[in-house]
């Protein structure tokens, strides 16, 4: 799957800094947008991304102090946003079985990826091998 838009949501600016670099090498022609404040992303999703006609990839940090990744997805659902074009990769610092189980409840989640991310891991996560 090719993505023309890739969104990064992580509360740590350093993480965004190197994720941006990996992702731009992975998908050189995509627009990469990043948010270190999850609420800003939620606003922006309403304004822009929900209207997209092309698939969008979201790399979502599972554990932010303001809001957990799953809660953020729930908020989008509560707001009745159009999420039909949104594919979510959950970014974690360590994979927990409880999180994997929880993820099956959210149809937009297409996979997990463990930090530090690299191109190999992205490829695997997106081909469903991970």
């Amino acid at each position: 799957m090719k993505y023309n838009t890739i969104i990064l949501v992580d509360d740590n600016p350093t993480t965004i800094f190197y994720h941006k670099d990996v992702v731009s090498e992975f998908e050189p022609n995509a627009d990469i947008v990043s948010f270190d404040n999850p609420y800003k992303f939620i606003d922006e999703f309403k304004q822009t991304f929900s209207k997209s006609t092309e698939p969008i990839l979201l790399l979502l940090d599972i554990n932010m102090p303001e809001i957990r990744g799953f809660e953020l997805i729930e908020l989008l659902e509560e707001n009745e946003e159009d999420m039909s074009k949104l594919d979510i990769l959950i970014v974690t610092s360590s994979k927990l079985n409880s999180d994997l189980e929880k993820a099956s409840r959210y149809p937009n989640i297409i996979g997990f990826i463990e930090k530090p991310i690299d191109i190999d891991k992205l490829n695997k996560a997106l081909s469903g091998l991970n």
Partner: protein
Amino acid sequence: MKIPENPNRLLSRQLKKTFPDGELTNEGMNKFIELVNEVYYSHDEDRLIYQRAEQISNRELEKTNEELQIKNDFLDTFNHGMAHDVKNHTSNIIGLVNMLKKYSEKQNIDMIKQINQQLEMSANQLTSIVQGFLYLSRSESKIDNQFTIIKKDELIEFINLEIQFLTKGKNVTINYNFNLNDLFFSRHILKIIFVNLISNSIKYSKPNKECIINVSLTHDFNNLELKVEDNGIGIDMKHAQKKLYNLFNQPESSENKGFGVGLFLIKKITDRNNGTINFNSELNVGTQVAIKFPLEINK
């Protein structure tokens, strides 16, 4: 009447004393019953004392158990949070090192500079997390209960020593306003709180602007107040209720620049010493943290 055969050893000694001739006389019998009565009385008393002792030791045991449970739970969450924090920062460092390799090959000096800056920041964050961990493991022991007369210059010197790696090369001004008059308190507690709060103020200062931190320590007979005020990036209090709760109550939520462990530590220390924390912040204006402790003069 005859004395029964093979009575209890103590009883037979008593019988011999009361009835020296081996005859159970009426006079001797009255005396004997009095003695037995006394024995029963003291037995009752002994039983009550024993019961009370048993109750007390049970209560103590329960209390100790409870304390152990709390400590255990705390260590559990704390270890989990620490591991999480360390893992995150290590991941960042690995990611940055990979980037460094790539841009070194390309000889992209500008990127290399940026990566170095990020690396330095990550390493410092990792250091402050580990420092918090060290403090906490120390503060779990008795050290923080040693109270002494606080000397103003000594305290400031120590704080500056601890934060110098954060202020290096940055535009930071710290104004100390310590009004001390024979303050008797734990030096250790004051150090931990000030160092952690000032570190946060520096870490969350506005880029390209002078970071001004006002630090004060005042007291009267009843209360002691520590205050740290900055002109940093601040927090939007509207969205921050949950974040704040997490910052102060769960080390594991601190997937963020080593902020969590510090505040979590401060909360623990404050709670243990019957203190209160007052946190105020405004986005793009700054943050003020005030911590109050009751002073137990008569203790």
